[in-house]
């Protein structure tokens, strides 16, 4: 009896420990999210041009939602969505191609330089994202910006025009390649760090076993390291893709051209219009998309964890 009571008390303690996190989640996620829904499906004051949130879901109206959905499928928002997916897809691929070798080298090959390299990866966080982007405005200035001059000297505009990421102009502002590069530059450290942590955790004995069984270094990488780092890749992808999809200031600062407009920019614009409900609807649509991405990540992570446990058993 005493054991049962003690066990119950201990369970209560564990439950109590989750309380701060639960309150945090309710106050800073669920309530604001519900407020966005109340605005998205609520009314509008035509005199003050202000949204009137409808808190009772039974009284929600879906006129603005219909308008936004129609616009996404065949309307003006369609190119914005396609463009956003394209830019984020390319940016993520570049993050992988650049970030994986870096994370791999630091985790497995850097030796005594590892700490220094890790510090170097964290250093960008010391400067605000906004400041780093504004620095690029100067570097890309067509009037003597160093990066602009260097890129133009090697014929980069023509190179990127082949891929449809530039119109061939020597002005880098307003070009798709500039926005994509800005995203990669801004979010690459967020990609490398979780990937590094994942690669660093791979059991060295597994790699040794692979070599002992006759696998070449390349084969060991392909058949052991890479599969074991998939959860790390996914974690890095989720951590970087989520903010990239909603990013609007990278685009605003480095482009400002409608030709590179992304979903985040449209949300920002729509909240300034006479019907800000449409901006809120767009937030919900984007959240739903990102939730799908997150759910996929969780599914893979859970499955990988289960397989690892089974292998251990």
């Amino acid at each position: 009896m005493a054991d049962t009571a003690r066990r119950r008390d201990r369970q209560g303690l564990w439950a109590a420990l989750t309380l701060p996190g639960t309150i945090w989640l309710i106050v800073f996620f669920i309530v604001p999210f519900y407020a966005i829904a109340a605005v998205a499906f609520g009314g509008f004051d035509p005199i003050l041009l202000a949204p009137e949130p409808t808190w009772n879901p039974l009284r929600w109206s879906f006129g603005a939602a219909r308008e936004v959905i129609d616009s996404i499928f065949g309307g003006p928002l369609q190119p914005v969505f396609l463009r956003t997916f394209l830019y984020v897809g390319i940016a993520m691929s570049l993050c992988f191609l650049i970030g994986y070798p870096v994370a791999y080298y630091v985790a497995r090959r850097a030796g005594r330089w590892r700490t220094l390299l890790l510090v170097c990866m964290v250093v960008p966080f010391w400067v605000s994202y906004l400041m780093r982007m504004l620095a690029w405005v100067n570097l890309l200035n067509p009037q003597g910006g160093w990066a602009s001059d260097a890129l133009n000297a090697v014929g980069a505009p023509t190179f990127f025009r082949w891929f449809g990421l530039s119109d061939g102009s020597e002005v880098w502002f307003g070009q798709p390649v500039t926005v994509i590069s800005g995203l990669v530059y801004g979010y690459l450290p967020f990609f490398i760090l979780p990937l590094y942590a994942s690669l660093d955790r791979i059991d060295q004995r597994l790699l040794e076993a692979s070599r002992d069984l006759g696998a070449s270094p390349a084969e060991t990488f392909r058949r052991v390291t890479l599969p074991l780092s998939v959860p790390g890749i996914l974690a890095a992808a989720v951590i970087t893709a989520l903010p990239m999809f909603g990013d609007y200031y990278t685009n605003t600062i480095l482009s400002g051209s409608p030709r590179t407009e992304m979903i985040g920019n449209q949300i920002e614009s729509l909240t300034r219009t006479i019907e800000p409900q449409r901006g809120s609807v767009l937030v919900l649509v984007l959240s739903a998309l990102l939730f799908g991405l997150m759910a996929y990540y969780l599914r893979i992570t859970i499955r990988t964890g289960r397989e690892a446990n089974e292998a251990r058993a």
Partner: protein
Amino acid sequence: MAHTGGFVLVVGAGGSLLAACGGDDDAGDGDGDGDDSSGSSGTIPLARLDAPVELPDNDSSPIDSGLDPESGTLTIFTYADYINPDSIAAFEEQYGVTVELATFDTEARLLSGLQTTAYDLVVGATTIGLPRFVVGNLVQPLNRDYLTNFANVLPSLQSPYYDVGSRYSVPYTVYTTGLAYRRDVIDDAAIAATGWETMWDPANRGYVGIIDDPRDALTLGMYRLGITDTNTDDPDVIGQARDAIAELITTTNARIDILAYQKIPEGTSRINQAWSGDMLAAQYYLPEDTDVDVLGYWAPERTTVANDFFVIPADSEHPVLAHHFIDFLSDPDNATLNFEWVGYQPALADPTPEALVTAELVPSQLTTALVTDEQVENGYRLDALAPEVQKLWEDAFQQVKAG
């Protein structure tokens, strides 16, 4: 009292109608059914230059005369960099108070800010928001007894068409919308010859900018087409303007923002649709090795004219002090000091445009950016629209921005 007229948009929960009180018919058909779930009701007077409006009484009353200014902190809601810090310091010293600034970046943000926070004074309201502030009980009538410098306001704005009798507002700055350009790339004579069409010149591809505002941006398209009904409710006209701006973007990869005052001086833009005040301020953003002569501004004789103004929120806790601040900045010397930093021309008779040039506050080639009282009287105005008409403009602009 001047005659009043214009249109009154009546919006109600169950329906709406537009009651014409005289004047023209370009204020929109105004059925006002922007959303059937609205619980608001009231009237929004839609003033037009040729159909002035006396704004109605609201729930607030003007403060009594003869009161001493309050002590403490005057909280001003305004655009960023829109009041000279030296002017604020001088006011603080003269009245023994402190001034705090809170900023907004669009009229929509101003409107929402006024509904949620008690500010003492707004600097930068426009004709688009004013009738809504009044009908929504967000501002209070002014007491002219405290405004000893009111006689210095530009004659054409002493009883403006949007607020006949200046019951709720006092003009602050005045400006036109035109084209800012780099004179080392675009010739003065060439832009004078080609006018608005210069924006569409593919030679400037990558170096073109449009104001990030539906009304201003689409009006540029209208001017190119020779249309001057800047408050139109005609979807075809708005559609034509949208197509013209879309063509501009295709031809020049124009960027949409409100940074002409930075981009023209730094050379990242060669030609921008811009407010004249931004160009007068641009001289302070020039790189060290760039001569002020590179800055140019062109606007036709008749173009979009606007004036921002002061209003005092209904729930101001320092309304007397707010009146004194308005009066302070309407004084010729204080207005000149303020102009030195802000760059937007005071909507006052003194200092005159000539005085600003003589004081070397305006480079000689930028006198085109100064506004005369005659221009104010004859300018095209961007006025408040019925909700469904405003939505037409905004939707057209969103389509352009979506690329």
